Protein backbone atom coordinates (compact mmCIF):
# COMPACT_ATOMS: atom_id res chain seq x y z
CA UNK A 1 0.00 0.00 0.00
CA UNK A 2 2.27 2.79 -1.16
CA UNK A 3 -0.31 5.55 -1.27
CA UNK A 4 0.88 9.07 -1.84
CA UNK A 5 0.09 11.04 1.32
CA UNK A 6 1.82 14.30 0.42
CA UNK A 7 1.78 15.44 -3.18
CA UNK A 8 3.57 18.71 -3.83
CA UNK A 9 3.03 20.03 -7.35
CA UNK A 10 4.78 23.05 -8.88
CA UNK A 11 5.00 24.70 -5.50
CA UNK A 12 6.28 28.28 -5.61
CA UNK A 13 6.56 30.95 -2.98
CA UNK A 14 7.38 34.54 -3.86
CA UNK A 15 8.38 37.32 -1.53
CA UNK A 16 8.66 40.91 -2.56
CA UNK A 17 11.61 42.60 -0.94
CA UNK A 18 10.05 46.03 -0.83
CA UNK A 19 7.57 44.74 1.74
CA UNK A 20 4.58 45.66 -0.31
CA UNK A 21 1.21 44.15 0.44
CA UNK A 22 -0.96 42.55 -2.15
CA UNK A 23 -3.30 45.07 -3.74
CA UNK A 24 -6.69 44.84 -2.12
CA UNK A 25 -9.32 47.50 -2.21
CA UNK A 26 -10.11 47.28 1.49
CA UNK A 27 -6.49 47.41 2.49
CA UNK A 28 -5.86 50.29 0.14
CA UNK A 29 -8.80 52.05 1.71
CA UNK A 30 -7.57 51.39 5.22
CA UNK A 31 -4.10 52.50 4.31
CA UNK A 32 -5.43 55.67 2.79
CA UNK A 33 -7.42 56.27 5.95
CA UNK A 34 -4.46 55.63 8.22
CA UNK A 35 -1.97 57.68 6.26
CA UNK A 36 -3.63 60.68 4.64
CA UNK A 37 -1.86 61.51 1.42
CA UNK A 38 0.10 58.30 1.61
CA UNK A 39 -1.88 56.38 -0.96
CA UNK A 40 0.81 56.85 -3.60
CA UNK A 41 3.39 55.10 -1.45
CA UNK A 42 1.76 51.74 -2.06
CA UNK A 43 1.59 52.23 -5.80
CA UNK A 44 5.30 52.06 -6.38
CA UNK A 45 6.04 49.12 -8.63
CA UNK A 46 9.81 49.09 -8.13
CA UNK A 47 9.64 46.07 -5.86
CA UNK A 48 12.15 43.29 -6.19
CA UNK A 49 11.00 39.70 -6.34
CA UNK A 50 12.50 36.81 -4.49
CA UNK A 51 11.40 33.25 -5.08
CA UNK A 52 11.89 31.28 -1.88
CA UNK A 53 10.53 28.27 -3.74
CA UNK A 54 10.20 27.74 -7.46
CA UNK A 55 8.30 24.86 -9.07
CA UNK A 56 9.05 22.25 -6.47
CA UNK A 57 7.58 18.80 -7.08
CA UNK A 58 7.81 16.15 -4.38
CA UNK A 59 5.88 13.16 -3.17
CA UNK A 60 5.79 11.29 0.09
CA UNK A 61 4.15 7.88 0.34
CA UNK A 62 2.67 6.17 3.30
CA UNK A 63 5.32 5.13 5.82
CA UNK A 64 8.06 7.04 4.06
CA UNK A 65 10.28 9.60 5.71
CA UNK A 66 11.54 12.28 3.36
CA UNK A 67 14.50 14.37 4.47
CA UNK A 68 15.02 17.79 2.95
CA UNK A 69 18.62 18.85 2.65
CA UNK A 70 20.26 21.99 1.39
CA UNK A 71 22.15 25.05 2.51
CA UNK A 72 20.65 27.78 4.65
CA UNK A 73 18.10 29.70 2.62
CA UNK A 74 17.55 26.93 0.09
CA UNK A 75 13.84 26.76 0.92
CA UNK A 76 13.66 23.69 3.17
CA UNK A 77 11.81 25.43 5.98
CA UNK A 78 9.57 27.22 3.51
CA UNK A 79 8.36 23.87 2.20
CA UNK A 80 7.56 22.79 5.75
CA UNK A 81 5.79 26.04 6.54
CA UNK A 82 3.56 25.68 3.50
CA UNK A 83 2.80 22.08 4.47
CA UNK A 84 2.02 23.19 8.01
CA UNK A 85 -0.32 25.85 6.56
CA UNK A 86 1.58 28.62 8.30
CA UNK A 87 2.14 30.47 5.03
CA UNK A 88 0.19 30.12 1.79
CA UNK A 89 1.94 29.19 -1.46
CA UNK A 90 2.09 31.79 -4.24
CA UNK A 91 1.29 29.17 -6.85
CA UNK A 92 1.15 25.43 -7.18
CA UNK A 93 -0.63 23.19 -4.76
CA UNK A 94 -0.14 20.55 -2.13
CA UNK A 95 -2.45 17.61 -1.61
CA UNK A 96 -2.33 16.10 1.86
CA UNK A 97 -4.08 12.90 2.86
CA UNK A 98 -4.34 12.32 6.56
CA UNK A 99 -3.91 14.15 9.80
CA UNK A 100 -0.89 16.39 10.02
CA UNK A 101 1.05 17.32 13.13
CA UNK A 102 3.58 20.06 12.51
CA UNK A 103 6.55 20.28 14.80
CA UNK A 104 8.22 23.39 13.49
CA UNK A 105 9.18 23.94 17.10
CA UNK A 106 8.56 21.92 20.22
CA UNK A 107 6.16 23.27 22.77
CA UNK A 108 4.16 25.59 20.53
CA UNK A 109 1.70 27.45 22.71
CA UNK A 110 3.36 26.49 25.98
CA UNK A 111 2.57 29.17 28.50
CA UNK A 112 5.10 29.76 31.30
CA UNK A 113 2.41 30.36 33.93
CA UNK A 114 0.62 27.10 33.22
CA UNK A 115 1.62 23.84 34.85
CA UNK A 116 3.08 20.96 32.91
CA UNK A 117 -0.28 19.20 33.03
CA UNK A 118 -2.17 22.24 31.71
CA UNK A 119 0.37 22.77 28.97
CA UNK A 120 0.06 19.18 27.78
CA UNK A 121 -3.63 19.76 27.04
CA UNK A 122 -3.13 23.19 25.45
CA UNK A 123 -0.25 22.05 23.26
CA UNK A 124 -2.03 18.82 22.38
CA UNK A 125 -5.09 20.75 21.22
CA UNK A 126 -2.92 22.98 19.04
CA UNK A 127 -1.45 19.88 17.43
CA UNK A 128 -4.99 18.91 16.51
CA UNK A 129 -5.56 16.37 19.26
CA UNK A 130 -8.86 15.80 21.03
CA UNK A 131 -8.88 16.07 24.81
CA UNK A 132 -10.12 12.47 24.97
CA UNK A 133 -7.06 11.29 23.02
CA UNK A 134 -4.71 13.30 25.19
CA UNK A 135 -6.21 11.76 28.32
CA UNK A 136 -5.70 8.33 26.85
CA UNK A 137 -2.03 8.99 26.13
CA UNK A 138 -1.37 11.22 29.12
CA UNK A 139 0.53 8.65 31.16
CA UNK A 140 2.68 7.66 28.20
CA UNK A 141 3.54 11.31 27.57
CA UNK A 142 4.47 11.93 31.18
CA UNK A 143 6.57 8.80 31.35
CA UNK A 144 8.36 9.65 28.13
CA UNK A 145 9.18 13.14 29.37
CA UNK A 146 10.34 12.03 32.81
CA UNK A 147 8.91 15.07 34.59
CA UNK A 148 6.27 13.27 36.71
CA UNK A 149 7.29 15.06 39.88
CA UNK A 150 6.84 18.51 38.40
CA UNK A 151 3.57 18.00 36.54
CA UNK A 152 1.74 20.52 38.68
CA UNK A 153 4.51 23.10 38.72
CA UNK A 154 4.27 26.04 36.31
CA UNK A 155 6.68 25.41 33.45
CA UNK A 156 8.39 28.75 34.11
CA UNK A 157 10.17 26.92 36.92
CA UNK A 158 11.31 24.07 34.66
CA UNK A 159 14.88 23.67 33.53
CA UNK A 160 15.23 24.07 29.78
CA UNK A 161 15.88 20.34 29.46
CA UNK A 162 12.66 19.45 31.30
CA UNK A 163 10.76 21.93 29.17
CA UNK A 164 11.82 20.49 25.82
CA UNK A 165 11.40 16.93 27.05
CA UNK A 166 7.82 17.56 28.06
CA UNK A 167 7.15 19.45 24.83
CA UNK A 168 8.59 16.68 22.70
CA UNK A 169 6.70 14.05 24.65
CA UNK A 170 3.39 15.66 23.73
CA UNK A 171 4.35 15.91 20.08
CA UNK A 172 5.59 12.34 19.98
CA UNK A 173 2.33 10.92 21.32
CA UNK A 174 -0.09 12.82 19.16
CA UNK A 175 -2.20 10.52 17.05
CA UNK A 176 -1.30 11.49 13.51
CA UNK A 177 -0.68 10.23 9.99
CA UNK A 178 1.94 12.74 8.89
CA UNK A 179 4.67 14.45 10.89
CA UNK A 180 6.35 17.65 9.77
CA UNK A 181 9.57 18.11 11.66
CA UNK A 182 12.00 21.02 11.51
CA UNK A 183 15.28 20.35 13.32
CA UNK A 184 13.44 19.59 16.52
CA UNK A 185 15.05 16.19 16.84
CA UNK A 186 18.06 17.87 18.35
CA UNK A 187 16.52 18.45 21.77
CA UNK A 188 17.68 17.37 25.18
CA UNK A 189 20.76 15.33 26.00
CA UNK A 190 22.18 12.49 23.92
CA UNK A 191 20.12 9.93 25.77
CA UNK A 192 16.86 11.75 25.17
CA UNK A 193 17.71 12.34 21.52
CA UNK A 194 18.19 8.63 21.08
CA UNK A 195 14.84 8.02 22.75
CA UNK A 196 13.21 10.47 20.33
CA UNK A 197 14.79 8.83 17.31
CA UNK A 198 13.72 5.39 18.43
CA UNK A 199 10.22 6.63 19.00
CA UNK A 200 10.07 8.18 15.56
CA UNK A 201 11.40 5.01 13.94
CA UNK A 202 8.67 3.01 15.63
CA UNK A 203 6.03 5.44 14.37
CA UNK A 204 7.41 5.22 10.83
CA UNK A 205 7.41 1.46 10.97
CA UNK A 206 3.76 1.62 12.01
CA UNK A 207 2.83 3.55 8.86
CA UNK A 208 3.21 7.17 9.88
CA UNK A 209 4.82 9.33 7.21
CA UNK A 210 7.20 12.16 7.88
CA UNK A 211 8.95 15.00 6.18
CA UNK A 212 11.93 16.31 8.08
CA UNK A 213 14.52 19.04 7.79
CA UNK A 214 17.85 18.31 9.38
CA UNK A 215 21.44 19.37 8.98
CA UNK A 216 22.65 16.22 10.66
CA UNK A 217 23.60 13.64 8.03
CA UNK A 218 23.79 10.78 10.60
CA UNK A 219 20.25 11.57 11.79
CA UNK A 220 18.98 11.61 8.24
CA UNK A 221 20.69 8.30 7.50
CA UNK A 222 19.12 6.55 10.47
CA UNK A 223 15.59 7.92 9.97
CA UNK A 224 14.86 8.72 6.37
CA UNK A 225 13.91 6.52 3.47
CA UNK A 226 14.19 9.29 0.89
CA UNK A 227 16.08 12.50 0.48
CA UNK A 228 15.46 15.68 -1.51
CA UNK A 229 18.14 18.28 -2.13
CA UNK A 230 17.00 21.87 -2.49
CA UNK A 231 19.14 24.62 -4.01
CA UNK A 232 18.04 28.23 -4.13
CA UNK A 233 14.38 27.31 -3.91
CA UNK A 234 14.48 24.66 -6.59
CA UNK A 235 14.51 20.92 -6.31
CA UNK A 236 18.02 19.87 -7.31
CA UNK A 237 17.87 16.14 -6.82
CA UNK A 238 15.67 13.61 -5.10
CA UNK A 239 15.93 9.89 -4.55
CA UNK A 240 16.05 7.02 -2.09
CA UNK A 241 18.37 7.34 0.88
CA UNK A 242 20.77 4.66 -0.45
CA UNK A 243 21.43 6.59 -3.66
CA UNK A 244 24.59 8.71 -3.74
CA UNK A 245 22.81 12.05 -3.21
CA UNK A 246 23.98 12.33 0.38
CA UNK A 247 27.60 11.66 -0.50
CA UNK A 248 27.55 14.28 -3.23
CA UNK A 249 25.77 16.73 -0.96
CA UNK A 250 28.38 16.19 1.75
CA UNK A 251 31.14 16.66 -0.80
CA UNK A 252 29.94 19.97 -2.16
Amino acid at each position, binding site marked *: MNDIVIDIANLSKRYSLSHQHRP*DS*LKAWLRAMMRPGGIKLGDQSTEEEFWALKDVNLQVREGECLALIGKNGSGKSTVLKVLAR*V*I*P*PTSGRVRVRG*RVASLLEVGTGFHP*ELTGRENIFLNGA*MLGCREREIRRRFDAMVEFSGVERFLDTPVKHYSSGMYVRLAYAVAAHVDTDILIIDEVLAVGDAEFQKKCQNHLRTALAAGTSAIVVSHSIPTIKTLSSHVAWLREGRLYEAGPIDSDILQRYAAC
Partner: protein
Amino acid sequence: MSENRPPTLIIDGSPPTWRSYRRELRAFHEVLRMLIRRDLIVRFRQTYFGLAWLLFKPLMLMAVMSFAFGFLAGFEKSHATPYPLIIFCGVIPWYFFSNSVPDSMNSLLGHMHIIQKTYFPRAIIPIAAVAVDAIEFAIAWLLFALGCIWFGYLPGWQIVFFPLFCLQLLVLCTTIGLWLSVANVQFRDIGNLIPFMLTTGFFLTPVGYTLMRIPEQWQLVYALNPLVGIIEGLRWSLLNGMEGFPLVPVILSLATTLASGLIAVHHFLAVESDLVDLA
Protein backbone atom coordinates in the same frame (compact mmCIF):
# COMPACT_ATOMS: atom_id res chain seq x y z
CA MET B 1 -2.73 5.28 11.00
CA SER B 2 -5.25 7.12 13.09
CA GLU B 3 -8.75 5.74 12.90
CA ASN B 4 -10.50 8.81 11.51
CA ARG B 5 -8.75 10.08 8.43
CA PRO B 6 -9.89 13.54 7.38
CA PRO B 7 -10.70 14.19 3.72
CA THR B 8 -7.85 15.14 1.42
CA LEU B 9 -6.62 18.63 2.13
CA ILE B 10 -5.65 20.90 -0.73
CA ILE B 11 -3.23 23.72 0.05
CA ASP B 12 -3.18 26.15 -2.85
CA GLY B 13 -3.24 29.55 -1.19
CA SER B 14 -6.86 30.31 -2.06
CA PRO B 15 -8.83 31.89 0.80
CA PRO B 16 -11.21 29.60 2.68
CA THR B 17 -14.92 29.69 2.00
CA TRP B 18 -17.48 30.32 4.71
CA ARG B 19 -18.37 26.64 4.72
CA SER B 20 -14.89 25.19 4.78
CA TYR B 21 -13.95 27.63 7.53
CA ARG B 22 -16.89 26.61 9.69
CA ARG B 23 -15.79 23.00 9.34
CA GLU B 24 -12.27 23.94 10.45
CA LEU B 25 -13.60 25.87 13.43
CA ARG B 26 -15.55 22.82 14.49
CA ALA B 27 -12.53 20.57 14.09
CA PHE B 28 -10.39 22.82 16.28
CA HIS B 29 -13.01 23.88 18.82
CA GLU B 30 -10.94 22.41 21.62
CA VAL B 31 -8.22 24.96 20.99
CA LEU B 32 -10.83 27.63 21.72
CA ARG B 33 -11.73 25.96 25.00
CA MET B 34 -8.07 25.61 25.97
CA LEU B 35 -7.29 29.24 25.16
CA ILE B 36 -10.23 30.49 27.24
CA ARG B 37 -9.19 28.26 30.10
CA ARG B 38 -5.58 29.39 29.79
CA ASP B 39 -6.56 33.06 29.87
CA LEU B 40 -8.74 32.58 32.93
CA ILE B 41 -6.02 30.65 34.73
CA VAL B 42 -3.25 33.07 33.82
CA ARG B 43 -5.29 36.15 34.63
CA PHE B 44 -5.99 35.08 38.18
CA ARG B 45 -3.03 32.87 39.07
CA GLN B 46 -0.96 34.25 41.92
CA THR B 47 -3.79 36.58 42.90
CA TYR B 48 -5.13 36.31 46.42
CA PHE B 49 -8.80 36.50 45.45
CA GLY B 50 -8.49 34.41 42.29
CA LEU B 51 -11.68 34.01 40.29
CA ALA B 52 -13.52 36.31 42.70
CA TRP B 53 -11.99 39.13 40.70
CA LEU B 54 -14.55 38.30 38.02
CA LEU B 55 -17.12 39.57 40.54
CA PHE B 56 -15.16 42.42 42.10
CA LYS B 57 -14.34 44.24 38.91
CA PRO B 58 -17.89 44.88 37.67
CA LEU B 59 -18.99 45.51 41.27
CA MET B 60 -16.41 48.26 41.75
CA LEU B 61 -17.19 49.69 38.35
CA MET B 62 -20.91 49.88 39.08
CA ALA B 63 -20.30 51.50 42.45
CA VAL B 64 -18.09 54.16 40.90
CA MET B 65 -20.49 54.78 38.01
CA SER B 66 -23.62 55.19 40.10
CA PHE B 67 -21.70 57.53 42.38
CA ALA B 68 -20.34 59.58 39.48
CA PHE B 69 -23.51 59.86 37.40
CA GLY B 70 -26.16 59.58 40.05
CA PHE B 71 -24.69 61.50 42.93
CA LEU B 72 -22.12 63.87 41.46
CA ALA B 73 -23.70 64.66 38.11
CA GLY B 74 -27.20 64.35 39.52
CA PHE B 75 -28.78 63.25 36.23
CA GLU B 76 -32.45 62.46 35.95
CA LYS B 77 -33.54 61.98 39.51
CA SER B 78 -37.10 62.26 38.28
CA HIS B 79 -37.24 58.74 36.81
CA ALA B 80 -39.61 56.23 38.33
CA THR B 81 -36.99 53.53 37.76
CA PRO B 82 -34.13 53.44 40.28
CA TYR B 83 -31.39 55.49 38.66
CA PRO B 84 -28.50 53.08 39.36
CA LEU B 85 -30.34 50.39 37.38
CA ILE B 86 -30.55 52.70 34.36
CA ILE B 87 -26.82 53.34 34.67
CA PHE B 88 -25.97 49.65 35.06
CA CYS B 89 -27.80 48.85 31.81
CA GLY B 90 -25.36 51.18 30.08
CA VAL B 91 -22.22 50.43 32.04
CA ILE B 92 -22.36 46.62 31.75
CA PRO B 93 -22.47 46.48 27.93
CA TRP B 94 -20.01 49.36 27.60
CA TYR B 95 -17.56 47.69 29.93
CA PHE B 96 -17.75 44.50 27.88
CA PHE B 97 -17.35 46.37 24.61
CA SER B 98 -14.48 48.56 25.76
CA ASN B 99 -12.58 45.57 27.16
CA SER B 100 -13.18 43.12 24.37
CA VAL B 101 -12.25 45.51 21.55
CA PRO B 102 -8.64 46.11 22.67
CA ASP B 103 -8.26 42.54 23.94
CA SER B 104 -9.27 41.00 20.63
CA MET B 105 -7.47 43.69 18.63
CA ASN B 106 -4.14 42.75 20.24
CA SER B 107 -4.82 39.03 20.30
CA LEU B 108 -3.36 38.02 16.93
CA LEU B 109 -0.23 40.13 17.33
CA GLY B 110 0.22 38.71 20.81
CA HIS B 111 -0.01 35.17 19.47
CA MET B 112 2.27 35.63 16.47
CA HIS B 113 4.83 33.22 17.93
CA ILE B 114 2.15 30.51 17.79
CA ILE B 115 0.71 31.52 14.43
CA GLN B 116 4.17 31.24 12.89
CA LYS B 117 4.58 27.68 14.08
CA THR B 118 1.30 25.86 13.72
CA TYR B 119 -2.06 26.01 12.02
CA PHE B 120 -5.51 26.23 13.49
CA PRO B 121 -8.23 28.63 12.32
CA ARG B 122 -6.84 32.00 13.37
CA ALA B 123 -10.30 33.32 14.20
CA ILE B 124 -10.16 31.20 17.33
CA ILE B 125 -7.65 33.61 18.88
CA PRO B 126 -9.75 36.83 18.81
CA ILE B 127 -12.89 34.82 19.54
CA ALA B 128 -11.25 33.43 22.68
CA ALA B 129 -10.28 36.95 23.75
CA VAL B 130 -13.87 38.13 23.41
CA ALA B 131 -15.18 35.02 25.15
CA VAL B 132 -13.09 35.66 28.26
CA ASP B 133 -14.55 39.16 28.53
CA ALA B 134 -18.02 37.77 27.84
CA ILE B 135 -17.73 35.66 30.97
CA GLU B 136 -17.25 38.83 33.00
CA PHE B 137 -20.17 40.36 31.09
CA ALA B 138 -22.44 37.49 32.11
CA ILE B 139 -21.40 37.75 35.74
CA ALA B 140 -22.10 41.47 35.72
CA TRP B 141 -25.74 40.71 34.84
CA LEU B 142 -25.97 38.49 37.89
CA LEU B 143 -24.93 41.53 39.91
CA PHE B 144 -27.61 43.51 38.10
CA ALA B 145 -30.17 40.94 39.26
CA LEU B 146 -28.95 41.45 42.81
CA GLY B 147 -29.37 45.18 42.29
CA CYS B 148 -32.98 44.62 41.21
CA ILE B 149 -33.64 42.70 44.41
CA TRP B 150 -31.99 45.45 46.45
CA PHE B 151 -34.22 48.12 44.91
CA GLY B 152 -37.27 45.86 45.05
CA TYR B 153 -37.64 46.13 41.31
CA LEU B 154 -39.21 43.59 38.98
CA PRO B 155 -38.57 43.65 35.21
CA GLY B 156 -41.64 43.29 32.95
CA TRP B 157 -42.49 40.91 30.09
CA GLN B 158 -40.02 42.76 27.87
CA ILE B 159 -37.24 40.81 29.54
CA VAL B 160 -37.77 37.98 27.03
CA PHE B 161 -35.94 40.20 24.52
CA PHE B 162 -32.95 40.64 26.82
CA PRO B 163 -30.97 37.64 25.44
CA LEU B 164 -31.42 38.93 21.90
CA PHE B 165 -29.78 42.25 22.67
CA CYS B 166 -26.96 40.45 24.50
CA LEU B 167 -26.51 38.22 21.46
CA GLN B 168 -26.32 41.22 19.18
CA LEU B 169 -23.67 42.79 21.40
CA LEU B 170 -21.73 39.54 21.36
CA VAL B 171 -21.86 39.42 17.57
CA LEU B 172 -20.82 43.07 17.37
CA CYS B 173 -17.85 42.62 19.70
CA THR B 174 -16.71 39.41 17.99
CA THR B 175 -16.86 40.74 14.44
CA ILE B 176 -15.24 44.05 15.34
CA GLY B 177 -12.61 42.03 17.17
CA LEU B 178 -11.97 39.84 14.11
CA TRP B 179 -11.62 42.88 11.91
CA LEU B 180 -9.39 44.91 14.21
CA SER B 181 -7.18 41.95 15.05
CA VAL B 182 -6.13 41.47 11.42
CA ALA B 183 -6.08 45.20 10.71
CA ASN B 184 -3.73 45.64 13.66
CA VAL B 185 -1.36 43.04 12.20
CA GLN B 186 -1.26 44.92 8.89
CA PHE B 187 -1.32 48.46 10.24
CA ARG B 188 -0.07 48.85 13.76
CA ASP B 189 -1.56 52.36 13.66
CA ILE B 190 -4.83 50.72 14.68
CA GLY B 191 -3.37 49.85 18.06
CA ASN B 192 -2.68 53.51 18.71
CA LEU B 193 -5.94 54.79 17.34
CA ILE B 194 -8.48 52.53 19.01
CA PRO B 195 -7.85 53.41 22.70
CA PHE B 196 -8.40 57.04 21.77
CA MET B 197 -11.57 56.18 19.88
CA LEU B 198 -12.87 54.22 22.85
CA THR B 199 -12.35 57.17 25.17
CA THR B 200 -14.29 59.34 22.76
CA GLY B 201 -16.87 56.63 22.22
CA PHE B 202 -17.72 56.55 25.89
CA PHE B 203 -19.21 60.04 25.60
CA LEU B 204 -20.95 59.22 22.32
CA THR B 205 -22.71 56.23 23.87
CA PRO B 206 -25.63 56.50 26.32
CA VAL B 207 -23.76 54.93 29.22
CA GLY B 208 -24.29 57.47 31.98
CA TYR B 209 -27.33 59.10 30.40
CA THR B 210 -30.20 58.01 28.17
CA LEU B 211 -31.02 58.70 24.55
CA MET B 212 -33.57 61.31 25.70
CA ARG B 213 -30.71 63.67 26.59
CA ILE B 214 -29.71 63.91 22.93
CA PRO B 215 -31.42 66.73 21.00
CA GLU B 216 -34.16 65.39 18.74
CA GLN B 217 -32.54 66.46 15.45
CA TRP B 218 -29.27 64.65 16.33
CA GLN B 219 -30.77 61.39 17.49
CA LEU B 220 -30.70 59.76 14.07
CA VAL B 221 -27.00 60.42 13.51
CA TYR B 222 -26.26 59.52 17.10
CA ALA B 223 -28.01 56.18 16.69
CA LEU B 224 -25.62 55.16 13.90
CA ASN B 225 -23.43 54.08 16.78
CA PRO B 226 -24.60 50.45 17.08
CA LEU B 227 -24.19 50.52 20.85
CA VAL B 228 -26.97 53.11 21.12
CA GLY B 229 -29.64 50.71 19.92
CA ILE B 230 -28.23 47.86 21.99
CA ILE B 231 -28.05 49.82 25.25
CA GLU B 232 -31.42 51.49 24.79
CA GLY B 233 -32.85 48.10 23.84
CA LEU B 234 -31.40 46.53 26.98
CA ARG B 235 -32.94 49.34 29.07
CA TRP B 236 -36.28 48.80 27.39
CA SER B 237 -36.17 45.05 27.98
CA LEU B 238 -35.05 45.18 31.60
CA LEU B 239 -36.65 48.37 32.88
CA ASN B 240 -40.32 47.83 32.10
CA GLY B 241 -40.29 49.52 28.75
CA MET B 242 -38.77 52.82 29.97
CA GLU B 243 -40.21 55.42 27.58
CA GLY B 244 -41.34 53.02 24.89
CA PHE B 245 -39.52 50.78 22.43
CA PRO B 246 -36.55 52.56 20.80
CA LEU B 247 -37.54 51.38 17.33
CA VAL B 248 -35.32 53.61 15.18
CA PRO B 249 -32.10 53.10 17.19
CA VAL B 250 -32.69 49.35 17.34
CA ILE B 251 -33.22 49.07 13.58
CA LEU B 252 -30.21 51.27 12.82
CA SER B 253 -28.13 49.30 15.26
CA LEU B 254 -29.12 45.98 13.71
CA ALA B 255 -28.23 47.37 10.29
CA THR B 256 -24.81 48.68 11.32
CA THR B 257 -24.01 45.51 13.28
CA LEU B 258 -24.91 43.34 10.31
CA ALA B 259 -23.05 45.48 7.79
CA SER B 260 -19.85 45.79 9.82
CA GLY B 261 -20.08 42.11 10.72
CA LEU B 262 -20.27 40.98 7.11
CA ILE B 263 -17.39 43.24 6.09
CA ALA B 264 -15.35 42.06 9.05
CA VAL B 265 -15.82 38.34 8.40
CA HIS B 266 -15.22 38.77 4.68
CA HIS B 267 -12.02 40.72 5.30
CA PHE B 268 -10.85 38.26 7.92
CA LEU B 269 -11.26 35.26 5.63
CA ALA B 270 -9.53 37.11 2.79
CA VAL B 271 -6.32 37.77 4.72
CA GLU B 272 -6.34 34.98 7.29
CA SER B 273 -3.88 32.70 5.52
CA ASP B 274 -1.55 35.62 4.77
CA LEU B 275 -1.15 36.73 8.38
CA VAL B 276 2.40 35.48 8.87
CA ASP B 277 3.60 37.20 5.69
CA LEU B 278 1.79 40.42 6.57
CA ALA B 279 3.16 40.71 10.08
